[in-house]
């Protein structure tokens, strides 16, 4: 990222990425940079909570959370002491489609950091006491948000949008499901899901390609060659046109809405990003912000976004408004979605959205961790490194005809699935 932006000369991000491959074929994307003496490592296995066994919702998340709770000869306390003694940051998480890991270390401690990462991935202990403790932490977290309107409306939305599908349940499981998960469940998921063929890695910082190749071999080569996953069916969201209300004794309602979206590799995806930005992607400049917040003072927060899962694509959005004004807010939101679907954006809106989306892309690459995260995202989403440069070119190429077509596909008849938590009036 050292190249300066000069008129007519766009710096190439892709040219700074090296593809590093270990002797046995483990590959990572590397941005070598010595300006700050740290390394950031991000990686993801392409198998997530959608792989939870029936009735064991939360099991993949639990497995991920247990990876740093004791490994090899180190129990949980000893493992965390080893990390903290050298200020190494290591964490694991899971979403619907991935188990992911994040490592950050001072450059001088890189060897220790990779060694501990290798232990966590290859020799996790899954000790019973750690298992019970982390389950209790997950249940406490679920109880904490049991009546939180944001969580309640999200749960109801998911359940209505994806009935009978793995995406219909929460990655974190439920208060009823988590206690029933056993060590055997967790160990089985670890053996099945964490494998070299579904692994994507990015490294940023003060490390050479040669050193990284050795560390990749040490850390990731011992994993199984191929993951054993269940096929997840592609699904388009259900319940369009329906409104689900979850009663909560609150003066304000949290409103979520959504419709089917577009695939990341759809030829209209760049145009869809542009028209979503016009609707509710930008703060201050988006139609929803202007109509809902600025003109009417209906809400503090209102937005829309494109959400892409491996097997489903959505346009989702949310707002929070007092119970008496929910109907008015929804009316305004629906009207804007329909209008944009029918007429597309104005020429000025199209131009402004393209400028913002292309101009702000650089802000996603200003820290090592953010760069590593972007590089893993591109790999898991099936893009090559060239996408780092192609992305802005594609957005710049979006024409009014493209934007109208994408708006018509994205917003269509304007029908929404709406999930409300609170006590909305006048619906």
């Amino acid at each position, binding site marked *: 990222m050292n190249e300066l932006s000069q008129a007519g000369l766009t710096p190439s991000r892709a040219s700074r990425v090296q593809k590093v491959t270990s002797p046995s074929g483990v590959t990572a994307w590397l941005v070598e940079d010595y300006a700050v003496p740290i390394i950031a490592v991000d990686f993801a296995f392409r198998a997530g909570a959608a792989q939870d066994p029936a009735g064991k919702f939360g099991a993949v998340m639990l497995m991920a959370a247990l990876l740093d709770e004791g490994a090899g000869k180190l129990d949980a306390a000893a493992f*965390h002491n080893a990390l903290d003694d050298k200020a190494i940051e290591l964490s694991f998480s899971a979403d619907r489609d991935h188990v992911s890991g994040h490592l950050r270390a001072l450059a001088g401690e890189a060897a220790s950091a990779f060694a501990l990462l290798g232990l966590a991935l290859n020799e996790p202990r899954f000790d019973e006491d750690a298992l019970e*403790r982390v389950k209790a932490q997950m249940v406490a977290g679920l109880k*904490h948000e*049991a009546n939180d309107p944001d969580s309640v409306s999200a749960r109801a939305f998911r359940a209505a949008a994806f009935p009978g599908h793995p995406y219909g349940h929460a990655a974190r499981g439920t208060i009823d499901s988590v206690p029933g998960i056993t060590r055997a469940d967790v160990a089985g998921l670890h053996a099945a899901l964490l494998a070299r063929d579904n692994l994507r890695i990015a490294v940023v910082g003060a490390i050479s390609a040669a050193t990284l190749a050795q560390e990749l071999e040490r850390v990731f080569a011992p994993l199984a060659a191929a993951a054993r996953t269940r096929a997840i069916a592609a699904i388009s969201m259900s319940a369009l046109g329906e409104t689900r209300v979850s009663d909560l004794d609150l003066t304000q309602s*949290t409103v979520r809405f959504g419709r089917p979206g577009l695939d990341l590799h759809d030829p209209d995806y760049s145009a869809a990003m542009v028209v979503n930005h016009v609707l509710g992607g930008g703060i201050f400049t988006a139609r929803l912000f202007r109509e809902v917040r600025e003109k009417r003072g209906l809400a503090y927060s209102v937005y829309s976004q494109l959400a892409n899962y491996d097997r489903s694509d959505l346009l989702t959005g949310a707002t*929070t408004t007092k119970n008496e004004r929910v109907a008015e807010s929804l009316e305004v939101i629906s009207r804007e979605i329909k209008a944009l679907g029918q007429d597309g954006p104005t020429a000025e809106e199209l131009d402004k959205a393209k*400028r*913002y989306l292309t101009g702000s892309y650089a802000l996603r690459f200003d820290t090592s961790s953010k760069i590593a995260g972007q590089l893993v995202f591109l790999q898991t989403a099936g893009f090559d490194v060239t996408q780092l440069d192609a992305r802005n070119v594609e957005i710049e190429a979006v024409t009014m005809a493209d934007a109208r077509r994408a708006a018509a596909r994205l917003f269509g008849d304007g029908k929404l699935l709406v999930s409300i938590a609170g006590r909305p009036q006048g619906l």
Partner: protein
Amino acid sequence: MNEHALTPTPAAAGLAAGPPVSHFTLANGMEVVLIEDHRAPVVTHMVWYRNGSADDPPMKSGIAHFLEHLMFKGTKNHEKGYYSNLIADLGGQENAFTSNDYTAYFQRVAREHLATVMAYEADRMVNLVLDDATVNPERDVVLEERRMRTDNDPAAQLQEAVHAALFTQHPYGKPVIGWGHEIETLDRHDAMAYYQRFYTPENAILVVAGDVTRAEVEPLAQTHYGAIPARGERPVRLRPQEPPAYAHRLVELRDAKVEQPSHQALYIVPSALTAKAGEQDALELLSHLLGGGQTSLLYRKLVLEQQIAVAAGAYYMGGAVDDTRFFLYAVPAEGVELEALDAAIEEELAAVQRHGVDEADLARAKTRMIADAVYAQDSQATLARWYGAALATGENVASISEWPQRISAVTVDRITAAAHLLKRQGAVTGYLKTVEAEANHE
């Protein structure tokens, strides 16, 4: 337009090998800090004002935060939306936040647009225009923001009650966003009076972090901010101070929406500005030793050994103008009463007061905190916030750059002394309880 009630972690930004930092003051009294980061062709531009919710006049709680929202409503030179549209066209991002002791505005843009964002902030420092047509709907927005953050959440309601109990006089006891009934009464006259009192060059700090040099920044700052006339002196913060506290107080909140109980204890302790030499560094380390992650004392004793909690931690809000808060918190294991958890926490604290801490634990905490200063160098936005927050609460650039050395010098004895600052007398304990718990008790 976010409200951040918490100060960023202490000004851990400086290290001998850290980024080049320059600091100078314009003739009109406005301070300037430049942090160079040449890795990406972007800059973070921030203007900090040394006034926050604790400077809200009596019966006008929330005015600092409300004005922060209104600062986006246009100037006599440019109508509402002009600048936000301009920043968006440049692919920039902008926002603002209000805390107890400061209000800050920021933009993140490509380096060549620094002059544009300076012109923006300089214009709205002196030329804000407000009318009822924009002020009144924005007040509704703030009331919705308050509902979203507080009225929907019993834990947030308890937090407000605990703070109000802890500070009987000092305005740190009032929520940053303000009390709902007072927000309802705020109008454009209140906002304009507050603006004219505090939005002055003497009261402002410019922080620029990113791919620019002093030779580029200094003339730009002179042109845009240097042209603003000085007011003569910095506005005075008038704050009722806290009397000595004699009573421990227990605040309980039970609500049908609560399914997971939790415990918190808050102590009033010296801040970076009010502490005696070295006290602040010892308090920073103490909070890390007591409750900074899985190797901390509270986690080890309460979660791993006694298994009476599923989570436990500590936090010290060191960056503050007046005496500030030290938090301890824990989430009980299933079936454990909050009273029992409270007793166990007090016991661990007493043990530190009596016996100090292990040298190995102290060394580990120091390693971690000094490494934070290196990690911070990876983010120009983080560095800009640390420097801005430190200067806005009365610290100086030297105290930031010396921070790692000061942390290294802290001894076990000073940790023990810091632990004695956490006195139950004067502290407030907060319990968040389920309604079931009430039924069981009565």
